[in-house]
């Protein structure tokens, strides 16, 4: 299994405030990895730094290619789809237009309608609502739409920021089931940031625990889940 994403000595800043202090980790191709940690630990910042949405220093390599200095849109065009916190839905556009937008940077225009149908197969509720304004969807439906929109890029790597946030437990189950399926069937590598550690550890193979901008623990998801100390001090369950 080859390494897809390597992060070395990542430091990120919000104005004068440093949020990441030399973060290091890597992702294997085809894997599901989770980044765990408390509020404010730097999970979201890490994802934002990968897409160059904030000021950062250090080395990030995607498939051997450094991402330093690249604009967000060009990082995305390499095949890195980012589902941001708050979902980034285009609320005043229809569900179908949102899906079209997910594929807007693709050159193979004629395959897009098929991919939209595939998304409707993954998420039947989106098909029922495809002409509706995306802002009228429920939170769960909007999260499904955000994941579907990200998949329309045909990404190699998908970054998910708190996909379970604000959703009912049953819907979260559904969503994580679909993510596992997408990872399995479409070979999309997934990096998921979660506060719901229990759930994330069920989905992921590898886990990193992050605290005040540093990786403090890493291992297989099972190791992390079984370690009572980590669970109590970092994951809180």
């Amino acid at each position, binding site marked *: 299994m080859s390494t897809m994403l390597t992060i070395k000595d990542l430091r990120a800043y919000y104005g004068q405030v440093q949020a990441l202090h030399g973060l290091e980790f890597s992702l294997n191709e085809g894997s599901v990895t989770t980044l765990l940690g408390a509020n404010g630990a730097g999970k979201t910042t890490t994802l934002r730094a990968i897409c160059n949405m904030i000021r950062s220093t250090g080395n990030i390599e995607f498939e051997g290619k450094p991402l330093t200095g690249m604009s967000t*849109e060009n990082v995305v065009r390499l095949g890195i789809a980012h589902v941001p916190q708050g979902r980034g839905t285009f609320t005043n556009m229809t569900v179908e237009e949102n899906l079209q937008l997910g594929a807007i940077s693709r050159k193979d225009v004629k395959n897009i309608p098929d991919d939209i149908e595939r998304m409707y197969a993954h998420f039947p509720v989106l098909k029922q609502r495809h002409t509706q304004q995306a802002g*009228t*969807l429920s939170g769960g439906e909007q999260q499904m739409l955000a994941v579907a*929109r990200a998949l329309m890029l045909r990404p190699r790597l998908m970054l998910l920021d708190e996909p379970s946030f604000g959703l009912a437990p049953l819907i979260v189950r559904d969503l994580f089931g679909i993510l596992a399926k997408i990872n399995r069937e479409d070979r999309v590598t997934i990096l998921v940031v979660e506060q719901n550690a229990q759930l994330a550890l069920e989905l992921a193979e590898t886990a990193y625990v992050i605290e005040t901008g540093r990786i403090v623990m890493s291992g297989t998801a099972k190791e992390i889940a079984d370690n009572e100390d980590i669970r109590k001090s970092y994951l809180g369950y």
Partner: protein
Amino acid sequence: MELFTNQVLAGIATGAIYACMALAVVMIYQAIDHLNFAQGEMAMFSTFIAWQLMQWGLGFWPAFLLTLAISFAGGIIIERALFKPLTNAPVLVHVAGFIALFAILNSVAGLTWDFTIKQFPSPFGSSGFLGSQLISTHQAGMIGVVLVLLLLLFAFFRFTRVGLAMRAAASLPESARLVGINTSWMIALGWGMASAIGAIGGMLIAPVVFLEPNMMGGVLLYGFAAAVLGGLTSPFGAVVGGFLVGVFENLVGTYIPGVGNELKLPIALALIIVVLVIKPSGLFGRKIVQRV
């Protein structure tokens, strides 16, 4: 009754031009959240270019189309050279930029083509439209061209990928970047299109107001009034606002004693103030339906 019909139709005709200017203003406002005070001067400059091309022997329509292309490129160049560097600058810096652009275009046009009034030909002529005395062929042509323009714009934003990308970039820039849209170029494209739309307005109104460097001052003011009335966030509203302002201006000028031609312009200003006080989002300003 005939006077009334006549005034309404004439109002719709000039309203078509206000709609053009309002649309141009709204396009840039959507992209960068600022009102382009130089929109009228850009249109005036484009009209001079068309005039120059015709002086050099081009027919009206070839000159018209070539002017659109030049204006489009010019709009993009203005954005890249002047406003892209100001992206994160405060409002007042933008205002200064717009005023500078206004002054530069106005002076350069005066220097190049001087300030004397010039005739600008109409491709439609000025006889009665379909033999009627109510509206001239040029006025009918103005309405027709603007309606075609609106249809094309609607189709562009509704059915093309670039149009979709532009809408996305205007409504949520960060999300747009996350789907791989180069939002910076979408803004430049918006400037190019606004510049071309303004050029259409300028070339259509020039046969009526005559060509000179200050010809667009009043027109742009009505354009602003139209944009505010329709709601600055709504291109559709800008167009409706344009037609409404055109008709309103004519009816007030005709039927309210003492207004006449001289006081029409303050009417536009009064309209802006009334709309801002009573309904700041305009008639069609964005109402976002959202469930969380």
